[in-house]
């Protein structure tokens, strides 16, 4: 399974994401500059955290027009996994690959912390290695992480089991329905504010992010075996 980690000017979690893939999966991973026009040959794409284009205008607003985003949309349309972490989540909503948007935290403060997150669905490739309702500890680091969507969209997300992660206990940013991460209707595009790639080693304070990457690999291997 080959991974691509997209690098925008201003991305700063790209190396962390690549290292998490290497460490947890020992799978091939490449950093892909945002001017890249094709993502053929990659089985999964990660849009990492950071401040693409300095968050000018709105977080993710300018990044979504990078040439690579056309390839990301094609990759998503083909049913292949796309994972947007933090700023990557913001980019995916701006690009219209996920519904809703991320507002500034209700505290108006940048929150850098380790928080409790509940796994709400395991019926996707990204979380099949967790158990439903499992509470995991993941780092967050964002100033604009309050997920927002209108009531109709939120009802839709609930109806179709698209809420993947909720904050357990304190909601660090005031997101609607305590949402920390959602998946698209096709169930192959996941956006999340917490950083699983920063929780893959005891030294980092948590290893709870590792099963997410292991889940992806396991789902892919299963799919390949079925396809063969």
């Amino acid at each position, binding site marked *: 399974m080959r991974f691509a980690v997209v690098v925008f000017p201003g991305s700063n979690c790209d190396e962390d994401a690549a290292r998490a893939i290497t460490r947890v999966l020992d799978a091939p991973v490449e950093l892909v500059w945002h001017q890249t026009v094709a993502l053929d040959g990659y089985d999964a794409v990660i849009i990492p955290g950071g401040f693409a284009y300095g968050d000018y205008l709105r977080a993710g*607003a300018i990044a979504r027009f990078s040439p690579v985003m056309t390839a990301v949309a094609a990759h998503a349309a083909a049913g292949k996994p796309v994972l947007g972490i933090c700023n990557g989540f913001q980019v995916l909503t701006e690009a219209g690959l996920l519904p809703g*948007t991320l*507002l500034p*935290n209700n505290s108006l403060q940048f929150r850098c912390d380790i928080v409790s997150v509940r796994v709400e669905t395991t019926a996707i490739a990204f979380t099949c290695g967790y158990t439903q309702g499992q509470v995991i500890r993941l780092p967050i680091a964002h100033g604009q992480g309050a997920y927002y969507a*209108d009531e109709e969209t939120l009802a839709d997300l609930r109806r179709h089991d698209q809420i993947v992660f909720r904050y357990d206990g304190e909601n660090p940013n005031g997101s609607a329905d305590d949402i920390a991460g959602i998946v698209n209707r096709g169930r192959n595009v996941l956006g999340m504010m917490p950083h699983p790639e920063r929780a893959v080693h005891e030294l980092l304070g948590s290893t709870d992010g590792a099963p997410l990457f292991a889940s992806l690999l396991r789902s892919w291997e299963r799919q390949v075996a079925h396809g063969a």
Partner: protein
Amino acid sequence: MKYLACIQITLKPSVLDPQGAAVAKALGALGFGEVSDVRVGRYIETRMTAQDEEAARQQVTSMCDALLANTVIERYEFSLEEAS
């Protein structure tokens, strides 16, 4: 023709504005007790060329929908004036 477009982007009324709330609180603390609500928005000016005013209007609308505003949470209005 050359035009100057003055674009105002504001949060939809249904969207909470913690920044506006903080500003309102600060104004209250400064003694401006008459302030009951503050909403913080964004103002953008663009100089541009267009066939005529109607074309300019359509171009600015496209710009707002595509990039300048996030219509999930924001709405926009703008004025156009002929520029030299």
